[in-house]
């Protein structure tokens, strides 16, 4: 259980303790992934539905893999269009899920708040796999997990988040999580991609990408979401790459052992230079591996909420400490 929650909708509503309990659990599952048979029976008999109302490759694969490694039964559904074009309302989607006896729903939706709607209407647990420009909590968690594993801590680190913050759910989840754990976050990007009153997250807004990178422990580079842009936000990709692209030269401003991250998929040569993406500071593939462990942790903690007996069979006994963590908003 994550606190007393049945859902994981965002990092905004989680306490630092809750985040840490997920990260600790994820560490245990990370070890499972290195075993010769990387599979545990924790979610045997549980059914997880992955419902993607927006195209996704890596997040969906990562969730499916996490579910299989936990021995859950999984079903997946992806539509590129909206739920409306399919002619079914979210309420009907919810009713169908309920009727099929699904325990956990992993949902990605183009509309911010769609997972919240399902969470309100379902007894099943809901995991937000990215909603509009709102949050992508498991991505935020896997980024923070990666930072913590790499640098041994989160508190006190200087983290730069670069690019299109306005349209980025990855940025929002990272910002909430990092700030709760005591990191100092600086963002930079085109002024047209900085959302209104963004400093109220508790972040510093740098005037240039160089200023944001200077002295950073971690540089997290956001994907420039071409499909979300309207023409007026930035003149061209060429101009973007020239002014905001993270090059090896710009990276020299950071700490010498800087950690470079990207949530993928990358636009090489645009927001991130080829030699940075593949360079010695890059942990981009490690993020992908860690993503499976973090999603296993989230699934385990949420699915295990009703079945402490089954959960006790798992090899992650120490992770169950999180059950006793203080809770923010009890269910019900």
């Amino acid at each position, binding site marked *: 259980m994550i606190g007393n929650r049945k859902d994981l909708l965002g990092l905004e509503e989680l306490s630092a303790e809750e985040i840490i309990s997920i990260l600790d659990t994820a560490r245990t599952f990370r070890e499972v992934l290195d075993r010769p048979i990387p599979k545990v029976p924790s979610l045997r008999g549980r059914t997880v539905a992955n419902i993607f109302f927006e195209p996704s490759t890596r997040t969906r694969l990562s969730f499916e893999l996490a579910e299989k490694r936990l021995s859950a039964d999984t079903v997946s559904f992806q539509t590129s269009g909206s739920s*409306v074009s399919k002619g079914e309302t979210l309420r009907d989607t919810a009713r169908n899920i309920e009727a099929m006896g699904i325990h956990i729903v992993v949902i990605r939706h183009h509309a911010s708040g769609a997972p*919240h709607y399902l969470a309100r209407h379902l007894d099943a647990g809901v995991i937000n796999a990215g909603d509009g420009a*709102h949050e992508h909590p498991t991505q935020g968690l896997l980024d923070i997990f990666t930072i913590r594993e790499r640098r041994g801590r989160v508190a006190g680190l200087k983290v730069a988040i670069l690019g299109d913050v306005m349209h980025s759910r990855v940025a929002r989840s990272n910002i909430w999580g990092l700030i709760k754990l005591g990191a100092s976050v600086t963002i930079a990007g085109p002024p047209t991609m900085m959302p209104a009153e963004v400093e*109220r*997250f508790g972040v510093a807004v740098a005037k240039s990408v160089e200023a944001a990178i200077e002295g950073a422990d971690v540089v997290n580079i956001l994907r420039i979401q071409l499909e979300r842009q309207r023409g007026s936000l930035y003149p061209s990709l060429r101009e973007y790459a020239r002014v905001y692209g993270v090059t090896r030269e710009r990276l020299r401003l950071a700490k010498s052992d800087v950690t470079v991250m990207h949530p993928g998929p990358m636009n090489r040569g645009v927001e991130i230079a080829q030699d940075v993406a593949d360079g010695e500071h890059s942990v981009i593939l490690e993020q992908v591996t860690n993503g499976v462990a973090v999603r296993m942790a989230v699934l385990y903690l949420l699915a295990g909420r009703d079945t402490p007996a089954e959960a006790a069979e798992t090899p992650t006994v120490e992770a169950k400490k999180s059950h006793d963590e203080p809770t923010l908003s009890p269910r019900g």
Partner: protein
Amino acid sequence: MTSPLCLRGGRILDPARGIDRSQDLWLDQGRVAGWGEDAPAALRSRPDVEVIDVRGAVVCPGLVDIHVHLREPGQEDRETIETGTLAAARGGFTAVACMPNTDPPLDERPRIEYVVRRAREAGHARVFPIAAVTRGQLGEQLTEIQDLIEAGAVAISDDGKPVRNAEIMRRALELTRDLGVPVIQHAEDPDLKGSGVMHEGWVSTRIGLAGIPDVAESVMVARDALLAEMTGGRVHIAHVSAARSVDILRKAKARGIRITGETAPHYLVLTDEAVETYDPRAKMNPPLRSARDRDALIEGVADGTLDCLATDHAPHTEIDKDGDFDSAPFGIVGLETALGLYIKALVEPKHLTLPELILRMTAKPYEVLGRRGGTLEPGADADVTVFHPSEPWTVRASEFKSKGRNTPFEGWQLPGRVLLTIVGGRIAYREAAEAALR
């Protein structure tokens, strides 16, 4: 013919004439017959007078709402002229001006005539149709404005959409200048609005919804003020939501420009924080804005910059308003909650006196439309609203007469309990519980 009515012992507010007095009000043959002892003796001695005891209640000219969507013709699953005017009567409104964004829009004489006829057949309140500015509300070609006005239209507007093209706005103002009707503008720059669904600010940033900046409204208010100044035409700004717009209106009025404005209750009692749970019932256009905007609107109402108080009653079906925020349509219902919300927002905190509030909901909107009305002087239409100013009641959408249940005020306790609504001397709404009349 309905029998004469005597409203006994209420506090009569006739703010257009500066009267606030406890007296009997006599209605006969669709008109105000007289006050107290001044009513004709022959009437007072008639045996068929229906006497209604309204002691403890306020008796005022019937409320008028110059901004509603009745959805007929074409969208009868959302509202009809019958249900919309029933809702109006329940909310204390004796007259409503309906916007032309129906399906098809009210852009030709037969369509205006249709609304006038349906209102006569099935209406429970007076209905003043507003004609489209452009054919199909497409913003390209002007409608036959004079013909539409002769058919019964009281104003022109492309509401739901702005008149985007400044040249067309200029010509519309020129063509209506000498006709005594305003051009009502849904002030919104469509490019600045973009794909926005809520106010652009900290809340939209935090919850990841696309924002609509306040200037999307204000730039068009400024443009239209200049066009009204240049043409001498009269422009009325619908549903003002932003502090910057209030500021422009105030300055334009000081310059003598013929410009007026209205706002709606939700902008005075809610802010963008109401959107935090992604509840589509908090989605309307223009959107709920910041606390600073809300305060500026209240100030604008208090000092008269915003002339009248409307509702922008916009019914939608439950299915349409269910689901995610992005795909839900803009708009909420307002007729059955407006009086209570306005008393709560404006009178209880003493921004307006009760007579001042009534003025903004009666004579002022008539004035904006260039019509006489909104008074209880003898001989006037017997359009009367009786309400209890302070007695609380609870908003229950399930009790609405409107087909629309899309209100963000479910469960709110409000003052301003409507007891009786009289249209042309006929009782259009009477609260079931007679006890409430005491």
